[in-house]
């Protein structure tokens, strides 16, 4: 089964019932394969089915609907305008640059996907419209930038086209007539309990997402059966669903997957054990023995269960699991092993949101009313505008019988928003040598104190740890204390001091943050004694030279930087390094969490 044919198959499956399958996340840069895929989708959707394209930064008024100002003033009564989501009812919405979606916009999309209707309560209008639709997210994110996880959780397919050849050909094997027949068949397709059980077992074994994802896998299996002309979901459909829906969300390496019940704990507890023993009896007996107290009066499933004897859920689960494991992308597995993937995925929400939040000036806290035309992102405040116009009506020649309100440009009032520039504090913590553990613990404490203090201010914190051969982004930018606690739990210390790599990493993160319109501050916690070069090779001399070089590059970026020298005896070396990165130098041999957070607060406040 090639990746191309899978991508083509996803077009057909999705086109049968976009609303039921939630959607597809197409991850790739602009790419011929992506264009082909979208073209194939257009060709596969039935005639007349709405297909709308929206940018990820779409304002609420357009997305959800609101007051139609022109029509309202014309008609002299409030006239609502439908948003894009309501217009796309029964069809598909394509979201461009989905990696830039804010969690807020994602939450609105989530609500619509869940409820099948869009509820608008904005600016004098309260209305609800049906909106059953499927989403196509065009995610052009690089590295860890991706669409918000909460939204991905509601889409059946995560498709990565990035690795496709420029000449890849996506040829859907289903004709319009096949799809039409499948649509007619779908409501009558049955899914045996054994298949549901097997899908659940597979999802748990792979650590694949929330129950919602398993449900999507079941729906995909059903659509696959319908597409194949059958009225009952069979083994092949379940295998397909496992491969297409569950595999791309695997968070547990196959080596570990033998023991389903223990796995999905969110915290990485211990390093994966070698697959010494064969899978134990991981799947319980088919009959649901331990049901919660409230049970339906009669169990109508029991007689159905005996019908297809060829489907043993245990064996089926193994088959699906094997197929799914084979389909897990190689790169994904490598990342799973380093267990950084969970953090990366969890980070997505915060990564995408900050920039967009800054960008749209029409958000934040309303802080009064201004005058002027509603241009750009300024939002017209209709009520205030009408109020401004009201006293002049008679003067402007409005007579008794004339129902129209006369509004002139002078009357326009806009709502002013005030938004604090978001700050990102990047801790680069030296985890090398013997004092590593202590330093890390204090840095962690400082991060948590800062977060606990400043969630009202919406500031973010990130932690980079460096030791051995390189620097790791231990805690991606976040303001969630929960996530910080989780990510910072347990990091081994010791090894060399790759200071150059650390300075590079901190600089790159700061640059990314600046591009999003945030104000980054970097805090280095180290003794400044570099002994690992950029390329990871040991050696004090080259290590130092590389570090100084990296420091000068950082200085050019003009990021506010604080260099905390944590060595027992402050060294000239550290001072020199701090000077070349134009950092504020601070000798603090016994840095503890509270003093650190106090210093950072002082440094970022200025």
């Amino acid at each position, binding site marked *: 089964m090639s990746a191309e044919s899978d991508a083509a198959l996803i077009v057909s499956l999705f086109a049968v019932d976009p609303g039921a399958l939630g959607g597809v996340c197409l991850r790739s840069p602009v790419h011929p394969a992506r264009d082909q895929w979208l073209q194939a989708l257009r060709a596969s959707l039935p005639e007349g089915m709405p297909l709308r394209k929206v940018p990820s930064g779409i304002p609420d008024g357009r997305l959800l609907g609101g007051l139609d100002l022109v029509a309202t003033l014309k008609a002299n009564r409030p006239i609502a305008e439908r948003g894009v989501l309501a217009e796309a009812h029964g069809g598909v919405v394509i979201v461009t640059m989905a990696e830039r979606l804010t969690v*807020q916009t994602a939450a609105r999309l989530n609500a619509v996907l869940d409820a099948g209707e869009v509820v608008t309560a904005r600016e004098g209008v309260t209305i609800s419209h049906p909106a059953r639709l499927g989403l196509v997210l065009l995610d052009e994110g690089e590295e860890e930038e991706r669409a918000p996880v909460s939204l991905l959780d509601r889409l059946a397919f995560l498709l990565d086209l990035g690795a496709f050849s420029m000449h890849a050909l996506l040829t859907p094997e289903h004709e319009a007539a096949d799809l039409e027949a499948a649509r007619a068949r779908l409501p009558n397709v049955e899914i045996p309990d054994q298949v549901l059980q097997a899908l659940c077992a597979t999802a748990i074994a792979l650590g694949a997402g929330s129950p919602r994802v398993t449900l999507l896998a079941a729906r995909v299996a059903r659509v696959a059966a319908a597409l194949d002309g059958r009225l009952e979901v069979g083994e092949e459909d379940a295998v397909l669903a496992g491969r297409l829906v569950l595999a791309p969300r695997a968070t547990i390496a196959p080596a570990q997957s033998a023991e389903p019940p223990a796995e999905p704990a969110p915290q990485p507890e211990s390093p994966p054990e070698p697959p010494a023993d064969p899978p134990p009896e991981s799947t319980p007996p088919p009959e649901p023995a331990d049901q919660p107290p409230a049970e339906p009066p009669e169990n109508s499933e029991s007689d159905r269960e005996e019908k297809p004897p060829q489907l043993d859920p245990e064996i089926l689960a193994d088959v699906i699991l094997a197929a799914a494991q084979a389909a897990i992308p190689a790169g994904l597995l490598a990342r799973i092993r380093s267990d950084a993937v969970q953090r990366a995925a969890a980070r997505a929400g915060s990564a995408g949101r900050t920039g967009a939040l800054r960008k749209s000036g029409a958000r934040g806290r309303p802080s009064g009313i201004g005058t002027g035309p509603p241009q750009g992102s300024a939002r017209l405040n209709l009520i205030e505008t009408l109020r401004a116009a009201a006293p002049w009506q008679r003067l402007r020649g409005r007579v008794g019988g004339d129902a129209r309100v006369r509004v002139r440009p002078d009357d326009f009032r806009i709502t002013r928003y005030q938004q604090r520039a978001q700050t990102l504090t990047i801790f680069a913590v030296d985890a090398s040598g013997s004092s590593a553990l202590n330093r890390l613990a204090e840095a962690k404490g400082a991060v948590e104190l800062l977060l606990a203090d400043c969630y009202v201010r919406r500031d973010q914190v990130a932690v980079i740890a460096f030791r051995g051969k390189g620097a790791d982004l231990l805690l991606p930018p976040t303001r969630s204390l929960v996530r910080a606690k989780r990510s910072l739990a347990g990091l081994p210390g010791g090894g060399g001091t790759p200071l150059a790599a650390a300075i590079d990493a901190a600089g790159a993160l700061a640059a990314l943050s600046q591009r999003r319109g945030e104000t980054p501050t970097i805090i280095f916690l180290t003794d400044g004694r570099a002994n690992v070069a950029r390329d990871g090779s040991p050696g004090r001399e080259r290590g130092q030279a590389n570090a100084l070089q990296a420091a000068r590059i950082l200085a050019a970026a003009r990021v506010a930087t604080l260099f905390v020298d944590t060595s027992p005896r402050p060294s000239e070396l550290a001072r020199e390094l701090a000077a070349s990165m134009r950092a504020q130098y601070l000798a603090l041999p016994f840095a503890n969490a509270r003093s650190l957070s106090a210093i950072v607060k002082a440094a970022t406040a200025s």
Partner: protein
Amino acid sequence: MTMLPRPVFPFSAIVAQDEMKLAMVCSAIDPSIGGVLVFGDRGTGKSTAVRALAALLPPMHAVVGCRYGCDPAAREALCEECQTRAKSETLKDRLVPVPVVDMPLGVTEDRVVGALDLERALSQGVKAFEPGLLARANRGFLYIDEVNLLEDHLVDLLIDVAASGENVVEREGLSVRHPARFVLIGSGNPEEGELRPQLLDRFGLSVEVKTPTELRSRIEVIKRRDEFERDKPAFVAKWKKQDDALRRKIVAGRKRLAEIVLPDEVLEQAAKLCMQLGTDGLRAELTLIRAARSLASYEQAESVDVAHLRRVAPPALRHRLRRDPLDESGSTVRVERAIAEVLGEAEVLNG
């Protein structure tokens, strides 16, 4: 806003999540507990549970024609209009469903607090007040999904109204005040952002939900959801008996609530527990006792005992602990530790 009566997933059919269900039931029996915050993993049916609860609530008496759904029996809580009318006539009442108002995402402030009735202002030039979501939620529930993503100015507004039980509107030349007593229900995923402490404090109970990792309950979740989606009316009908029984228990629990005996010993233990945990103010203790009484009433006990206290202590207290970022253990663990210290180990008590 008119909500189409859509079939909702039955409350009794929700698999596991016992603490969440219990917290919601307790809150429905005694609204003065002050609402429930449900925080947890994605896809654990947080919103489903809230909507299911709405379908469970028995109808209430309301004044005919009152925009705020005033209770004819509660004289002191009547809105201004009803007060005026009550002087000259007897207020007629009728049975209406308890409002469960959903706060849509992207809602603007005028829709929440109420505003100038635009239609009448534009077409007739009349200055009239059009009530908002807070008015509709009076005497019912206000549900905010993704409560941690709520915009700051709306949070401020809610904190204020939730505390005073009254919505004061001073805008667009209008000056209106009306009762807005509601039970706040919020849900969200803590990974997407924290909640302001002031808002956190407005919730009586707070529960944490996790994805069921146990295979059998996971299968049951998927099976029931699948069954529901394929034929909603049939699924609702199948669970009607259980839901009806639960509704009767809630009604009975409400009636009995005032008669539940509250022994001094239990009060003392509750106070000790709060002291041990260093929770601020009286609100924690009050919530703890109310929740325990509500649970006792629900379970048809005659008096509150320490076992009730033990069960409601985690949801009543875990969000009120003073934050100590340097303490590794989560708040649930801290509450449990305090329970063990103050109330003793569970085995001893049950024996």
